[in-house]
């Protein structure tokens, strides 16, 4: 399963970004192999509608789950249309890999 995580850097050791539409990177991680693709977010500089544009990117990358801090209304509606599960509330203090492991653990239980 592909999981998208908003990140402040291009590796699994980077901290999670609390921002969605204006985060620096999206990490698209395959949860079975932990292999990932880092995509820099053009939305960081966009004047408007960065959230839905970010949602579009994640949808087109084939992610099924999104881990982030906070997702705005317009982005949320866009993601829901495509059936993507949103897991909110991650803080900028944890690493991407820890956030992933935590999510996968809670999912197992």
């Amino acid at each position, binding site marked *: 399963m592909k999981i998208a995580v908003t990140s402040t850097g291009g590796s699994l050791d980077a901290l999670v970004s609390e921002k969605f539409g204006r985060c620096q990177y999206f990490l698209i991680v395959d949860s079975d192999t932990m292999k990932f693709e880092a995509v820099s977010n053009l939305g960081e500089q*966009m004047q408007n509608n960065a959230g*839905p544009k970010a949602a579009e990117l994640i*949808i087109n990358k084939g992610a099924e789950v999104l881990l982030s801090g906070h997702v705005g209304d317009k982005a949320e509606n*866009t993601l829901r249309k495509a059936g993507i599960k949103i897991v909110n509330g991650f803080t900028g203090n944890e690493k991407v890999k820890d956030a992933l492991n935590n999510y996968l653990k809670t999912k197992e239980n």
Partner: protein
Amino acid sequence: MTISVASGKGGTGKTTVAASLASVIPQSVYIDCDVEEPNGHLMLQPKFTLEESVNKLLPEIDYNKCDFCGKCIEVCEFNALINLKFEILLFAEMCHSCGACEYFCPQNAITEIPKELGKLRSGITENGIKFYDGLLNIGEATAVPLIRKVKAKIDNEKINIIDSPPGTSCSMVETVKNSDFCLLVTESTPFGLNDLKLAIDVVKNINVPFGVVINKYDETFEEMENYLTENQIEVMLRIPFDRKIAEAYSNGILPVNNSDKIRREFIGLIATIKKKIKSNVTQMTQKKQIFAD
């Protein structure tokens, strides 16, 4: 002849000044371009005679033709379209009706459909002032297309007073540009001064001659006086910070209808502006002639 009234900071008295000017000019035309919050009608009390819809064009997608190639998304400067690969989502409030998506769609799957953006109201006051204002629908991101429609009511045979939205962004620029003169209304406060400087930058950039009106005038606010003296900016009118003016205003009475002194000052103000516009026109013609020679 078109005189716009702008401010930078909100709440300095644009509408008070604009409506007062319109009231002292026989057969004037009052145009309220503050379409997000028009309030000129509260002071001038026109009888509305007509209300028209103003539309903007939005793309509609024919899914029998669309193959989700994404060209429309690529050409949209405003991120108004999102490609879900099974649906093209439109964020209508972001759309600027530029038509690029329709023009570039390889499948001809896009048609532009009109959608109401706001209303344009026309009316006339008891004293014969022709009154126009725009009323933007809630949630619309840009007021510019509606402002253009309202400004189309300018009557070049008459004196037009345009009430501008506050601020110095697109809607203020659209309102003030091509005016013969712009009155910048400020107040004797640090906020008033800060935003006056921004507004002066704008009108200089778009080459509109301007003058300053200080409302709620307080001579002890020295920063304002220093700035105006240093930059040789003329103050065309000072309206005192006076409880009587505020009380009358709260009852919908303009200062020009409450005080003979202020009325005379506004009549003087309009005469000065007319002179300035005439001398500008003469200068421009002279320049043109020199250029032609």
